[in-house]
Structure formats: structure tokens, C-alpha cells
């Protein structure tokens, strides 16, 4: 059922070469898009803030990231005397590698309209994605947790107080939002019935509600899991308004304060790689990935899915920059409140609702009754939770008064 048709039969030299070719392409796309993304963010945020942004290196400042990278490589690499040297060297890699690995499961193209996302390269049928493991997006959850180790160990091994505080914050933030992140993905799993990103995209490529809306999970799961995932992913990435990990005013720079030279560059790359990976995953799981209308001359057919995919990802990237230009940083208790008291209960409740509907559908129960009963249970639960939360606040207030 799952798996790349390339790897279904015997594996010879041609198959290995194609996989290597795909790995090189994915790596190249990732690095190239990170370089462009850093430029894009600086340029767009400048536009949003009445500035001009980088405009000196190359046309429209396009080569600014390369210039910065070259500068970073040639700078002195300092290690604090109190640092744990092994961990200090390991942390940037731990931050960077998981972003690459998560990106491997993203379908980047392929005609999902009539060919089921299978592309034909060098006479072999395959998927336009580096890997389609059976565990699917569980790999993303695992890798985004590992990536937090990079931040945490960087903060801990620096032997310096501000990075340490930042590392602690990163840990707490990741724990708080990982649950909401995973729970919102359970909704997708319930609808799609598969963990494989490829199968999820195939499922979304079909005709949707009323034949007018696309069959994307953002609509099929009801918009709630998408919103929860968007917020939780932003928090997981440590981007505004959840950038407490890098709160410059409080932590001088956060976990990367003691890093210099290309090791700092690794963190910088990792941050943007994670952003691109997370946006791609969001597009894959909720917005149908490369699925989209295929039209025009047949020469366009292999290109259009990639174009759809890039457009969808660009929308998220722009939104991330836009949010950074607009929103102030949350306070720490607001961050924790939002994670534990809002996102996790909402995601959990929605999963239960979807599960009830799914079971009702499978068992041919009366759907109206199922709907009423589940919504009723949901509201009772929400009321109980709300009153519990307000009750927990009560004694504090009385003490103060």
C-alpha cells in the first residue's frame, strides 16, 4: 500500500542512483530556499516596517545571505572556557540535521490529479519526495523534538547564564506545545487513515465538498486542527510572538549568545530550515501539498504541482514574516496558558469530536444524533474545564485583595 514504487521491486544500481539524485535535489532545494528565505524575510520585514532592507549585495540584495555566510565562515570561532566542548560542538548540528530529515518526507511535486503523484524519472516510476516512510509524519514529530535538543544543549553547554535560561525556556516551550502539535495531527490521521505524507496528499487531491471547495484537510477536518497546528508550530519554531527563546531584551540573544563564526551560522540556517520545513509540512498535511488543478499544454504538467506547492509554502512564509513584523512577544505565563489551557484542550476535544463522527459514520449511526450528543459532551467538557480554570484563579485573587 505504501512506499515508493521505485523501491517495490528489485533494487539495482539505477534505483540507488535515483535515490541519491533525489537526496541531492532535496538538499539543494533546502539550502537554496534557506538562502532565499533569509533574504525574503529581511526584505519583506523591511517593507513591512517602512525600510528598504538589504540592497547592496547583488541585484535587490539577493546575495546578502551568501555574503553573510562567507563573513561568518572567516570569523574567529570562539568557545567559552567554561563550555562543555563536545556538547558545544554537537548542538548546532543537532539543530540543523533534524530540519533536513523532516524535509525528506515532504512531497514536492508530482501529478496527484490523475497519476496519484507518481512521476517517471529516467524510465523509473517514483515519488517526487526523498522518502515516504511508513511512520510518515511521526518522523516530523520525532525530529522536531530532537531539534529542541540542539537549542537546549547549546544553552546548557555554553557555560553561561543567559543561554542556559534560554535553553530552559526552549525545553518548557517545546514540551508545552508538542502535545498540541501532535494532537492536531491526530485529526489529520483520523481523516486520512494514513501516516504517510504521500497518501495524505493523494487523499486530498480528490474532488471536495460541493465540488467547489478543494478536498484539503484544512476544510475536511474543520479549520480548528489547522489553527492549533499553526500556532503550535510557530511556538515550536520559536518565532514571534513565541520567540521567548531568543528574547534579545532579556537574554541578550538566547541560546546562541556564546556562539560565533559558522557555528552561529548553523543555528541561523537551522532556524530558517525549520521554518521552511514546518511550512512545507503544513502545506502537505492541510493544504493538499502539490495537489492542484493541472491544465495547459502537457509540457506544463510536471511543473504545475511544484508551482502550486511553492505558492502555498510562500503564503505561509509570508505569514510568518508578517506576524513577526506585527506581533509583540507573549509573556511567559501567557505562553504557558495558551499552550496548556487553550491549545491542548481544544485539540483534544476536536480529536474526540472527529473520532465520534468517524465511528458514527462507520457504524451507520444516525449522524444528526451523533453530532448533537458529541457537541453536547464537548460543551459540557469545555464548561467544566473553564470553571476549573476560573476556580483555580479564585484564591489568588482573594489573597491579593
Amino acid at each position, binding site marked *: 500500500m505504501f512506499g515508493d514504487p521505485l523501491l517495490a521491486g528489485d533494487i539495482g544500481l539505477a534505483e540507488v542512483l535515483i535515490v541519491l539524485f533525489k537526496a541531492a535535489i532535496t538538499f539543494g532545494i533546502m539550502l537554496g530556499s534557506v538562502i532565499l528565505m533569509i533574504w525574503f524575510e529581511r526584505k519583506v520585514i523591511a517593507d513591512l516596517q517602512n525600510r528598504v532592507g538589504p540592497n547592496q549585495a547583488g541585484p535587490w540584495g539577493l546575495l546578502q545571505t551568501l555574503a553573510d555566510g562567507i563573513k561568518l565562515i572567516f570569523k574567529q570561532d570562539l568557545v567559552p572556557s567554561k563550555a562543555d566542548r563536545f556538547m558545544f560542538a554537537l548542538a548546532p548540528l543537532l539543530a540543523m540535521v533534524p530540519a533536513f530529515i523532516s524535509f525528506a518526507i515532504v512531497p514536492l511535486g508530482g501529478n496527484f490529479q490523475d497519476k496519484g503523484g507518481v512521476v517517471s524519472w529516467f524510465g523509473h516510476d517514483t515519488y517526487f519526495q526523498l522518502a515516504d516512510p511508513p511512520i510518515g509524519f511521526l518522523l516530523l514529530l520525532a525530529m522536531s523534538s530532537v531539534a529542541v535538543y540542539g537549542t537546549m544543549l547549546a544553552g546548557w553547554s555554553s557555560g553561561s547564564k543567559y543561554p542556559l535560561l534560554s535553553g530552559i525556556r526552549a525545553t518548557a516551550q517545546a514540551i508545552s506545545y508538542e502535545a498540541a502539535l501532535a494532537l492536531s495531527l491526530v485529526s489529520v490521521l483520523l481523516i486520512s487513515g494514513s501516516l504517510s505524507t504521500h497518501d495524505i496528499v493523494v487523499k486530498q487531491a480528490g474532488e471536495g465538498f460541493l465540488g467547489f471547495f478543494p478536498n484539503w484537510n484544512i476544510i475536511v477536518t474543520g479549520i480548528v486542527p489547522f489553527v492549533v497546528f499553526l500556532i503550535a508550530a510557530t511556538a515550536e519554531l520559536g518565532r514571534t510572538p513565541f520567540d521567548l527563546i531568543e528574547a534579545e531584551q532579556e537574554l541578550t540573544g538566547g541560546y546562541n549568545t556564546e556562539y560565533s563564526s559558522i557555528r552561529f551560522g548553523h543555528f541561523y540556517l537551522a532556524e530558517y530550515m525549520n521554518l521552511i520545513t514546518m511550512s512545507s509540512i503544513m502545506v502537505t498535511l492541510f493544504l493538499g501539498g502539490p495537489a492542484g488543478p493541472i491544465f495547459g499544454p502537457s509540457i506544463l504538467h510536471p511543473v504545475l504541482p511544484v508551482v502550486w506547492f511553492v505558492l502555498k509554502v510562500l503564503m505561509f512564509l509570508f505569514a510568518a514574516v508578517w506576524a513577526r513584523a*506585527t*506581533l509583540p512577544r507573549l509573556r511567559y505565563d501567557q505562553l504557558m496558558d495558551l499552550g496548556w489551557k487553550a491549545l491542548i484542550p481544544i485539540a483534544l476535544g476536536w480529536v474526540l469530536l472527529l473520532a465520534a463522527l468517524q465511528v458514527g459514520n462507520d457504524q451507520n449511526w444516525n449522524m444528526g444524533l451523533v453530532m448533537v450528543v458529541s457537541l453536547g459532551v464537548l460543551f459540557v467538557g469545555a464548561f467544566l474545564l473553564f470553571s476549573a480554570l476560573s476556580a483555580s484563579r479564585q484564591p489568588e485573587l482573594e489573597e491579593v485583595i
Partner: protein
Amino acid sequence: MGVLGGFAVTFKKLFEDRSTTPYPEQKREKAPRTHGRHVLNRYEDGMEKCIGCELCAGVCPARCIYVRGAENPIDDPVSPGERYGYVYEINYLRCIHCDLCVEACPTEAITESKLFEFSFTNRDDAIYTKAELVVDDQGLPKHLPWEDWRPGEEVNTSAWMRATSPGGSADYVGKVAWTAELGFGVRAPEAGQRGEASDTGGEA
């Protein structure tokens, strides 16, 4: 709607014009009284205005001016008076361009041009002597290789630049309050700066 309103505000900025000047290629016009690097002025007959009184050195808060006066040679006087500035040095690594020397000068010998874009590769270059500071025979400041002069920065470098009128009276409108100088003669009086209708006229 607070948060969404914020998003709308930033989004509108995408389409607004930028007021940024692309600096090294284009430069904004400098304010008429920008404090820049000094010049030592000369009278219309070519005599130096500096009389070597060292008031500028005395008033300088950064102690960057070094002056030694000397008796004018009788057969070839440098300045119209008894003495002249024999040594005149300004260290631009120390100068803060406060213009106090300009205000202290009794003969309007030292004034400031609008040039501030100059830098040095060694400390000796930063010490300007009379050879660099005294205006040339057209009354214009000398251009040194490491200075980035733009059109308009070398005119009006003279007493016209004085921050206050002589005697401390602000009512200098229409009055010529400075002496003639080499290359320019007596400059026209300065326009008033009170925003009144009579403030036009003169050289702005």
C-alpha cells in the same frame, strides 16, 4: 479586532513610499549650518584673518586645537594686525564639531564647512595644519584626497555660518554682521528664522 488591526497596519506599509535615501549614491541636502571640518579664512586682499590669539584653543572643550601666534614680518605681513597664526593645528580625532571655536574667534578667521565625510588611515593625516585649513586663492576650502566633497558644501563656509549674531542679539535680520572675505566679498545678510513674512530675502 486589536490584533487583526495590527496586521492591517503592517500590511499597508508594504505599499507606502520609502523615505530612505540610498546614501553613498545619493545624499540628502545638508542643513545650512551643518558643523563640518574647519577652514581658516582670508580677507579680500589675501591676508589671513587669524591673529594667533589662541581664543579658539582656549575655548575648545576637546582640546583639539593647537595655536602659536607670532609677530608679523614687517616686510611681508601675513595678517593685517600685529600678530598672525604661526602654527595652527586641529586634531580631527578629537574635534567634536561643537563650533565653540567659531563663536570665540574675534576675526571670523575659523569657520566650519559642511564637510563631515572624511576619514584617515593614520593619525598624522588626522592633524590638519595651516597647509590644509587655509582657504585657497579663490576663497574655497582645499580638497584633500580622503575628503568626499559634494557640490554646495564648500560655499558658505565663512562667518555666514556663525551660530549667533554678534553681541548676542537675535535681531540680525537684514544686517550684515560679518567682514568681507577672499573670493566672495561681503556676503548678503542672512534671512530671519522666525517664520515671519519678512524673513525672506538674503541668502538662505
